[in-house]
């Protein structure tokens, strides 16, 4: 069974594949907005931590989008929920 992180990577790439061919050419903004609006903080923190650690398996635009999340801009991850 795949771990949560594997699944998050897969989900993020799936989102990326939808936004990449959209009109306007700003797939990154679309992906970042989707993650911002639909992922719970611990999911975002999880994927950001993975991104910091090199982001293995993440497609290009997805990687860039994760970098735009506020969790990524905030620096060190917060402890979930406290």
């Amino acid at each position, binding site marked *: 069974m795949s771990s*949560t992180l594997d699944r998050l990577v897969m989900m993020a790439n799936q989102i990326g594949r939808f936004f990449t*061919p959209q009109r306007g050419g700003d797939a990154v903004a679309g992906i970042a907005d989707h993650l911002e609006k639909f992922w719970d903080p611990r*999911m975002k923190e999880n994927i950001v931590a993975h991104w910091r650690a090199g982001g293995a398996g993440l497609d290009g635009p997805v990687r860039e989008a994760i970098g735009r999340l506020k969790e990524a801009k905030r620096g060190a991850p917060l402890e979930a*929920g406290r």
Partner: protein
Amino acid sequence: MSLVHETDYGTPVSKSSEMVTLTIDGQPVTVPAGTSIMRAAMDIGTKVPKLCATDSVDAFGSCRLCLVEIQGRPGTPASCTTPVGAGMVVSTQTERLKQIRKGVMELYISDHPLDCLTCAANGDCELQDMAGAVGLRDVRYGYDGENHTKQEKDESNPYFTFDPSKCIVCSRCVRACEEVQGTFALTIQGRGFDSKVSAGMAEPFVDSECVSCGACVQACPTATLSEKSLIEIGQPEHSVVTTCAYCGVGCSFKAEMRGEELVRMVPYKDGKANRGHSCVKGRFAWGYANHRERILAPMIRETIDQPWREVTWEVAINRVASEFKRLQAKHGRLAIGGITSSRCTNEETYLVQKLVRGGFGNNNVDTCARVCHSPTGYGLRTAFGTSAGTQDFDSVEHTDVVLIIGANPTDAHPVFASRMKKRLRQGAKLIVIDPRRIDMVRMPHIEAQYHLPLRPGTNAAMLNAIAHVIVTEGLVNEKFVRDYCDLDAFEYWASFVAEPQNSPETVGLMTGVSAESIRGAARLYASGRNSAIYYGLGVTEHSQGTTAVMALANLAMATGNLGREGVGVNPLRGQNNVQGSCDMGSFPHELSGYRHISDDATRTMFEKLWGRPLDAEPGLRIPNMFDAAIDGTFKGIYVQGEDILQSDPNTKHVQAALAAMECVVVQDLFLNETANYAHIFLPGSTFLEKDGTFTNAERRINRVRKVMTPKNGMADWEITLAIAKAMGFEMPYSHPSEVMDEIARLTPTFAGVSFDLLDKVGSVQWPCNEKAPLGTPVMHIGGFARGKGNFMITEYVPTDEKVGPRFPLLLTTGRILSQYNVGAQTRRTDNVVWHEEDVLEIHPHDAEERGVRDGDWVKLDSRAGGTTLRARITDRVAPGVVYTTFHHPNTQANVVTTDFSDWATNCPEYKVTAVQVSPSNGPSEWQREYNEQAEHSRRIAKVAAE
């Protein structure tokens, strides 16, 4: 309280706009042209005696009881088959008519058993009434002639009997089965004196094609076709109008009662979703409410291997509160959450999400719509600006081309299917896109022009190919696109779909459907004057579910099939209140009326009214909750009326997640599968035991009315209030109507809704507000809710779930007519006579390759897990595709399904799983272990503790 009586006008209403005036018994009356004299008479309150006519079916004119005299016309025409004429002068009662009617009744009664006093229909029999109405006092022929009074009853149907000795051969049942239900199960066999009603090929009802909808029982004027519950209990003394709690059609019923005992459920003619029709579930399958397995007392335990202990409500509720508070103190505010139920009322759903957001202080709330129609919400909102279907059900009466994709209406939405079938019999054309040859493809008097049996998982490719034909063959409705859609988006989309990879020739190879059929279907859809799309979970439950919904929206916009009657994009919603649970803010990212939780203005409004700060970050969706539970950050859950263990994909993963939590609270009627992992069980109430509203697939808000005291002591909404209170978050409501008032205050699309309004007008479709005080049957008239219609690019991305040498077949899942979802209710009714177990449909070719014979046990394995069930060999499925249902926990079809999901919403990909099928000799090891655990977990300690 008294019985709700509905007037029988004798013949159906005429839809003509031309009006005609005539005189009946000296009174002038004006009615639409085409109305029968009988109906016109009833309009002024004159009941012409009748037996073979009833307003649910076309007149037939066989009993000769409804004769009238018309000035200037010879003879005595039947008023049911004679249409009104301008200036007609009609008499309904003359000496001649009286004599003829008496004669007719004498003949009927001489061949009828005279056991009125002990007959189940006593007091509700039209034959009895007519004998009275015509003043019959004796029968000159005696009762000794040749008659039918000794004929055997057919008791084979679990819910109604057929007693031919009481039959007057009026053929109302036959016509109801044909015209209302569209099944054609009944015929009149023989002629003259020998003629009699017969099911199928003179078979018992239960073996015939009869689907037990009850339309014939409803139409029968005598006791010939009677509900068994009526025979057993007796005639009801009062009735209350309420809404079926099974599927998203949302049929209105009269619950006919004796005291607090339910005698029968009778479909309500004024119900705007069902117009007097019903299916076997709503009409008959309500026995679960009194099933011996229903749990009526709250129960707790420390660990899931302990037996349950019954406790008082107070102890149970306090335990919920103290556990949840403990978990939040230890693991953080985000460590708990809740799941609202699409089976509960709008008010109850609203309260659960309010409890989570206001009381738990987070947004970890989700609902079973996650696993069915969440892509509909996202997709339609992106395209049109509203997360719901565009039409009312009546709309299908104006449709010329019906496109059904990924839906099986005759099984899953039977009452709406009957209306659709009626329209198809009138000549509308039909396209079916489905891997299986569903019943709609070919049935009596209906044949689809195109059936595209595509490979599971290729919907988006197929819809792009249809769009390709529309764009490249000049079939776009340019005016509509120019007037109502975002032109730039359209042009970008049009050039995308026109690319060669989207041509039917290329897509044909991927989908396994010939390019010619795809082109033909596309042309038919685009050329219909009014074309309407109806879709179901076969569209949404895919990794590209949301993409496919957008692709459907694109098709409708490109061809201008929106914004009027007869057209639209119509999701056929699964559960009774799945639309409502979404509307009520059950999703972790949005408040009621689909407003994002991060929107400050909306959030502030709720904060002010609720007196609590709300979190602006979205919460966890159901699958994310499971992952977080396994990771140890999600520890407690309140599940109202939803069996996540049985209904969610990848059962083993769900098991592990539930087992990892410290406090699982289940509120349900029965110890469902999820309860095997619960620490606190709160017994729920049925739809008969509470007040509230359900919202059906056409956005129609219908009243649910309490007809009996909750057997468990509390309605579901009261339980949520008690938990909130114990957690220190008071929600002071004394009745669900007050909850609806709050919803209306906070939700612009519900602003005009109140129980008072619903009691007055029956039902309304949201948006219901100042602009539309009586609701909105058809949406997007003269423009889209979001402004301009939005074309999204719907590139086909094949699912990661792929067939290979180990798993060479594709499994797709669905449901059948007599059972409902996880079957918690229907399995506890006589509906099991039609479906005792889940079976695996497999094509003869695939079966033969594996040495599988019809009825054999087979093992069904996927990458996620395996189960066993019996095989049914059929060419309804294409080679390479197998199909099963998920109604029975013994099978646990979801142990096989994977946790791939829709990219936008995480809606699981139930419809595509790569599997292998092999012969087997009985249940698998896992099934045996599962059943052992379930049995062990369901033990209830004998002595009540605490």
